[in-house]
C-alpha cells in the first residue's frame, strides 16, 4: 500500500465497517471491509439485498460516516459529500420544480469558477452527450423513465467529478432502455476516464459494465470474492462470452448466500 513506486489508489476503503441502530438493537450492515479502486477503474458491487453494497456506496459518497475505519480519496479522508464524488440513485432524484436544464445546472451552480454562460454551455454539453439536447426546457414529469435517468446521469457528470457512484441506477428501467444505457455509459466513462463504483444485483449487468466485479454476501455484509473482467469493450450484454462469465459468477454468488 505504501509502495512509493505504485500509484496511490483513487479510492481506498480502509478497514471500514458500519453498524446501524434499530428497534431491536445494533445491526452490522457492513463488516470490516478493505477495498482499493484504481483511477479510471469501473468496479461493480454485486450481491443480494442487505449485503452492504449500498451502505458501502453511501460511505464513499460521504452521505453516511463509517462506524470504524476511513474512506480515502486521492489519499485524503472523505469527511462529507462533495461534488468530486457524484451519486446517481436508483430513483432518479431529479427536482420536479426545475426543468431539465435547471436540474443539470443545480450542481454546476455550486461549483466555483464558472460564470452563468459557461455553466449553461457545460450543462448543454452533457445533455447532448446523453442525447437530450432537445429537451432542455421539458419538465421532469413529461420524460420517460429512461430519459429521467439520462438527465440524472448528465447531472452527475456535469460538475466533472473524478468518481461516479451509481446505486442500481437502471434497476427500474425496461430491458431495451437499459441496453441502450449500457452502451452509453461504457462510451462516456471510457471517454471521460471516470472512476466508477456501480452497485447492482444483476450479475450480467455487472459483467457487461465492470473491469472488476466484487461479490458481497449478507448477514453481515462483506466481500466474498472478486472477478476481473477482461472482455474487450464495448461489450454487448447479449454476448455469449459475457454470459459464460456471468454464469460462473452467479454460481459463486449462490454458493456464498446458500
Amino acid at each position, binding site marked *: 500500500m505504501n509502495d512509493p513506486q505504485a500509484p496511490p489508489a483513487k479510492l481506498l476503503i480502509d478497514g471500514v465497517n458500519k453498524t446501524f441502530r434499530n428497534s431491536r438493537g445494533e445491526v452490522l450492515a457492513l463488516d470490516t471491509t478493505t477495498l482499493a479502486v484504481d483511477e479510471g477503474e469501473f468496479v461493480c458491487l454485486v450481491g443480494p439485498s442487505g449485503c452492504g453494497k449500498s451502505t458501502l456506496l453511501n460511505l464513499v459518497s460521504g452521505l453516511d460516516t463509517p462506524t470504524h475505519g476511513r474512506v480515502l480519496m486521492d489519499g485524503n479522508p472523505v469527511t462529507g459529500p462533495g461534488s468530486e*464524488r457524484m451519486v446517481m440513485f436508483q430513483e432518479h*432524484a431529479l*427536482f420536479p420544480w426545475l426543468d431539465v436544464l435547471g436540474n443539470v445546472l443545480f450542481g454546476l451552480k455550486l461549483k466555483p469558477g464558472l460564470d452563468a454562460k459557461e455553466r449553461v454551455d457545460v450543462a448543454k454539453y452533457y445533455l447532448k452527450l446523453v442525447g437530450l439536447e432537445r429537451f432542455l426546457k421539458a419538465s*421532469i*414529469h413529461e420524460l420517460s423513465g429512461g430519459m429521467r435517468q439520462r438527465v440524472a446521469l448528465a447531472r452527475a457528470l456535469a460538475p466533472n467529478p473524478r468518481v461516479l457512484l451509481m446505486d442500481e441506477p437502471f434497476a427500474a428501467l425496461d430491458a431495451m432502455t437499459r441496453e441502450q444505457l449500457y452502451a452509453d455509459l461504457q462510451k462516456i466513462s471510457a471517454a471521460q476516464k471516470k472512476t466508477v463504483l456501480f452497485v447492482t444485483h444483476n450479475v450480467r449487468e455487472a459483467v457487461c459494465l465492470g473491469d472488476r466485479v466484487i461479490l458481497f454476501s449478507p448477514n453481515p455484509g462483506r466481500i466474498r470474492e472478486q472477478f476481473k473482467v477482461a472482455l474487450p469493450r464495448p461489450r454487448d450484454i447479449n454476448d455469449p462470452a459475457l454470459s459464460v462469465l456471468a454464469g460462473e459468477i452467479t454460481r459463486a454468488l449462490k454458493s456464498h448466500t446458500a
Partner: protein
Amino acid sequence: MKRLFIATAFFALLVLAWHLLVRAEIWSPVLLPGPAAVGEYLWASLLDGSLASSSWVTLKRLMIGYLIGCLAGLPLGMLTARSNTLNDTLGVLALGLQTLPSVCWVPLALIWFGQSESAMLFVVVMGTLWSVLISVDNGVRNLPPIYTRAARTMGSTGFHTLRHVILPASMPYVISGMKQGWAFAWRSLMAAEIYVTLLSGYGLGHLLHFGRELNAMEQVTGVMLVIVLIGLLADKILFSPWERFLHRRWGLNG
C-alpha cells in the same frame, strides 16, 4: 373562445332569471331587489367613491394581515417540521388554534386592542398564521429524503438546501396552505368588520352592516356581489399563476 362564451351566457342567464323572479313579484322588492336596483346602487356608490374606499380599507387590512401571517407561518412551519421539541409544543398549539374559527378571536382582540386597526389586523393574522404554518410543516415533513440527499452530494448545505431544495420541494403544500390561509383571513375579516365598527375606516363589512341597519337590501346584495368578485379576482391573480406552474412542472392537478 367557446369557453368564454359559455361562461358569459351562464352568468347572463343567471341575471335574467333573477330579473324575472323579481318581476314575478312573489316577494316584496324591499326584500328582493332586482338586478337593476342593485346595479343602480353599485353605480352610485362607485361614483361617490364609497365603494372604492371601502374596498381599499378592507383589502389593505387583509393584505397586511395576510402578509404578516404568511411571513411568520412559513419559517415557523419549517422549524416545527425539523424539530421534535417545537413540533410537540408550537405544532400542537398551531393545530389546536387552527381548529378555532378565527371569528372567535374578535372578542379577545377587542378587549386587547380596543376598537382599532390593530384588532382587525390581529384577527386576520390569526386567521392566516396557523393554517399556513401547518401546511408548511406538512410539506416539509413529507419531503422525500432523496431530494436533500441528492442536493448534499452536489455540495448543497445549510441555508442553500433550505432555500433551493426544501422550500421549492414543499411548494405544493405551501401554496395550498397559503390559499387556505387566504380563505380564512377573508372570512374572519368580514366577520370582524360586520361585528365591529371602526372609525378609522369603513370596510366592505361595514357597508353590509349599514345596509342592514338602513334596510337597504340593494346595498346588502351589491356589497355581497363585490365581496364575491374580490374573492374570485384574488384567486385568479394570486393563486392561479402558481397553480399553473405547479401543474406544468409537477404534473399535479393543483
